[in-house]
């Protein structure tokens, strides 16, 4: 059943047991994104610690794809610098645009390669991207605050 391409074990696991879900009170940037076509919502709290490492928490309401993607993303980006996060973000965006042609680089994306099947379901790509777009927005804002210009 080709539905299994979409709903991989890893995705359903993250959906049932999401990581970093529950908003942290200590944050520098809060962003709220919605998917206007379906009503899914995500809120992301972002903080850079004293070593400029990302501290991300999130909360949201949505389908398994959008919520699992938020969980996987938070797992991948937490503890990294924004610069270190950039290739991960780029790789995930490329994976979503691949129309199923790209299996994803496990070295960079780790669990997030499970979303490779999503790119074959055009209506679901936005679900998978919801959290990542919120992060992209948050990262730009935090860089704006700290005055850094690269990657903008």
């Amino acid at each position, binding site marked *: 059943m080709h*539905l299994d391409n979409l*709903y991989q074990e890893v995705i*359903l696991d993250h959906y049932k047991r999401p990581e970093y879900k529950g908003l942290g009170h200590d944050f520098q940037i809060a962003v709220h994104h919605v998917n206007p*076509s*379906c*009503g899914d919502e995500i809120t992301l709290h972002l903080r850079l610690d004293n070593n400029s490492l990302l501290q991300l928490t999130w909360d949201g309401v949505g389908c398994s794809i959008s919520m699992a993607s938020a969980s996987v993303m938070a797992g991948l980006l937490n503890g990294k610098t924004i610069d270190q996060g950039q290739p991960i973000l780029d790789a995930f965006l490329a994976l979503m645009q691949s129309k199923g042609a790209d299996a994803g680089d496990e070295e960079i994306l780790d669990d997030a390669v499970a979303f490779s099947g999503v790119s074959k*379901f055009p209506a*679901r790509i936005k679900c998978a991207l919801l959290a990542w777009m919120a992060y992209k927005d948050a990262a730009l804002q935090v860089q704006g605050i700290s005055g850094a210009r690269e990657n903008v």
Partner: protein
Amino acid sequence: MATPSTQTINRRSMRLDAQELRKDFPIFQRTVRGGQRLIYLDSGATSQKPRVVIEEESNFYSLTNAAVHRGAHQLAEEATDAYEGARQIVADFLGAKLDEIIFTKNATESLNLLAYAFSNSEPSGRFHLKKQDRIVVTEMEHHANLIPWQQLAKRSGATLAWFSIDGQGRLDLSNIEEVITVNTKVVALTHQSNVLGTINPLTAIVKRAHEVGAIVILDACQSAPHLEIDVATLGVDFLAFSGHKSLGPTGVGVLWGRVDLLEQLPPFLYGGSMIETVTMAESTWAPPPRRFEAGVPNMAQAVGLGAALNYLNKIGLSRIHEHEMELTEQLLLGLSENSDVEIFGPNNLEMRGEVVSFGLANIHPHDLGQYLDSRGIAVRTGHHCAWPLNRRLGVNATTRASLYLYNDSLDIDALIEGVRGAQLYFGAR
């Protein structure tokens, strides 16, 4: 003219044979998701089209295409006859007069046309709104019958007020006199909720609205394709519906208005066809309906809609409604046997239509919809362009099945089984 397959009608019981009817709709010849039968339960979003509609639209281009209401040639004459003929079919369909029918792009445009025409009204005019005035809507409106009024309220300074709904998804009219105040100028509401399936009772609302001199505008997108409508009986002042939900083509909608009101209503779109005289400095307007149909209109689509309404008339809306109610009952029963299902909207057949929205414990509608799609079942998931209603229901999204004449009890069985299948699929992993 459109004639449904002769075997469609089971003479003895006069019940619809949906399987036979489906032969009139080319799309049911295709399969989906790896050779499976298409189970189309999304007619509330858009209906499928019978061959006669597709042919009528195509024939307009092949045989009679010319700009209507202009040109001194045979084609222009034939095109005008076809277009005005379609207007007559729509008028008859609603129990209206010919000149009360305005063709628009869709129902959304029909409602926006009204809201903007109100804004264009002279301060002394009947449709002018000012700060002390009130516009009344309901909590169950589709965005298309909410946002134009929100915006009109902003432009005019009028207040927007609304009826709320009760636990069964019906309008709470207990405070009708506080909601429709003496200052109310417009009451805009849906005939049938596109989410809950609720059919709204109009008598009391129309009575109160007219008592205070307000204009009643009815969004009939979900009702006109399924229920016999007679505008005089409904007593409303304006009514909008869309062609594409009524077996017709996309790109054509209808606005009906009482002739005495249309005569006073200023235009919204300006340009060719809608004028009486034009000088460099001034213009005057054509009488309705042409005042509201600027530019070369959507002729082929209007003609296609005429064929669609003929097709519906031939089968009979009361039989269609009866057929849909049988299926709705089967669906409500089947879903209510599943303890993880929550139905949003009336759980009985009283004053409700063929739209059923529901939630499923622990499975998001988008995931359920995706699973159903893998079994060839097309449903709608999301907020159905009624976000405030979803908030009122306390959900971000629902799954909606909406039926039409070509659905049968096997389709309903498939959906009920499909819901259980989704529970196994997502639950067992």
